[in-house]
């Protein structure tokens, strides 16, 4: 494992910034920097699964990853950018303003190579559908922490169907209270109450190994 991946995994913010900047200055391929960052985030995910890390560390790693990407992304745009694993629309269901679970999932998904279209919180079904159409995304992630969000999730799935997109879009719901029963009620393809697990499910949707 590279120094950069290890620094991200160990949440060493200053060290990550320095390594990324040094790599950019020395002309390293920006895509390889992104790849090392992803490897670091994978380790964070493993440590979270094994309960060495908790929500705090997950959020902190996300911040470090974002900071690293802020340095790398301009270089990626200047050169060739890698193709995303898949395009994905993500947001918190109408009637719910909880954002932290959605934001953690979004950061981890970006780190895993997804191109994200974040519609924010309290997002109406038509907003999800419009963004799916505009982006051509093949995965939709709907987050919610409150029971009333189940109804909004269901309405969103119905709106995706009504728009003729359902066969082209895999739908995952996430949040602290969603269960398999809720998944069936909503009509989604997958359910998770855990952001790293959600990333794995989305990778499967994207056909990634």
């Amino acid at each position, binding site marked *: 494992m590279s120094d950069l991946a290890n620094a991200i995994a160990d949440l060493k913010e200053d060290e990550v910034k320095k390594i990324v900047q040094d790599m950019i200055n020395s002309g390293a391929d920006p895509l390889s920097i992104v790849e090392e960052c992803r490897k670091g985030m994978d380790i964070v995910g493993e440590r979270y699964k094994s309960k060495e890390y908790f929500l705090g560390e997950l959020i902190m790693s996300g911040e470090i990853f974002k900071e690293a990407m802020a340095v790398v992304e301009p270089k990626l745009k200047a050169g060739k950018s890698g193709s995303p694993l898949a395009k994905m629309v993500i947001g918190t269901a109408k009637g719910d303003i909880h954002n932290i679970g959605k934001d953690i999932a979004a950061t981890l998904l970006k780190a895993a190579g997804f191109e994200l279209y974040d519609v924010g919180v309290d997002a109406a079904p038509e907003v999800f559908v419009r963004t799916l159409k505009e982006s051509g995304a093949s995965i939709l992630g709907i987050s919610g922490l409150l029971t009333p969000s189940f109804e909004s999730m269901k309405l969103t799935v119905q709106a995706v169907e009504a728009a003729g997109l359902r066969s082209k879009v895999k739908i995952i719901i996430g949040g602290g*209270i969603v269960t398999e029963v809720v998944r069936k009620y909503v009509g989604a393809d997958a359910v998770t109450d855990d952001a790293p697990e959600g990333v794995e499910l989305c990778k499967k949707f994207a056909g990634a190994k």
Partner: protein
Amino acid sequence: MPIERPFKTSYNWEHLEKVLRRQTTEGPVPIIELLVDAEPMSEVTGIDFPAAKAVELFTNAGAALNDNAALEMGLKLMDLSLAFSKAVGYDYVTMIPIVPIRKTRRTLADDPDAKRGQRAWIEETKGIISDRREFEEYEWPSLDQVSLLPIDYAGGQLPAGMKVMVQCDGIFEILKELMGLQQLAIASIKDPALVDDILEQLTRIMVHTVDIVAAHPATGAVFYGEDMGSSVGTLLSPKFLKNYVIPRLKLIADACHKHGKLFLLHSCGQLEDIMEDLIGVVGIDAKHSFQDNIEPVEDYYRKYRDRVSVLGGLDMNLLSSGTTEEVKIRTRQILKACAPGGGFCVGSGNSISNYVKIENYYAMLDETRKWNEEHGY
């Protein structure tokens, strides 16, 4: 749909306290809630109350002391709480001390199509203290600004057998509101000294608050709300919580116990990693808040029934989305597992929020009353 048949028509704090202290397996299974939103209280009692005002009062309680209109609204809410407890048959009425800590909360934008009313949630991203400078500039209330007006007010009107259950927001709960959960998570790793200093200020205020609350003759118990878990584990690492939060919770619980009052803990999420500390170090008398997808109440009861009493457990998903028949079945399942051994009260897994179906709330009460009748109570 106002309540047609109350759970009971007399009040017996003495019995509830014995159950909470696990001193009896005899008598009816009591009912308990941490919080009931204004809308269901209005529906049960038939008393109109502008629910959005309750959200404002909870968000900025301190302002009520200097604003006659807000004070009047606060008194109306207290009247509603009293009427609700009497109408249903709770052995207590819930009151909240006024602790004027300025904080932020987020509410949904008004939505005329929404079937439920307004609710407010803690700030998740960034609160009002995110660095040392903001901490230094923050105006912490002095201890003499803490007001027990609600407890005095309710205490003067309690029917025979009823006590005041005092709900207190916990230090970690307020910390999340002050910093925002995301900012807190980062600060807990990058600047734990800042988090420590904020917690110290909050502990100073909360130890005092719980001390005077527990000393109040109308107080039956303190219901202390401190959400520390997500669905898969503690929000911050158990190590952090054990270093910075648990020892302070012990000080707060001690302030309650020194007056011989019970310290009931409401805390959501998966807390297995700190449960021994909560019971063994803090000395909680009861645990409240259960979700079936995290740990069904029966499982927790089997593990900890000899050490703490266990409160509530009807899953919020079921209460808000299930049928009355499903609620009755689940209530009976829980009663079968938890009632015979004592130290258990029926209630929701979290709260009777404004999105709980009122008929499901009644179904939970009806099934519990039926259980008690079947057992001769």
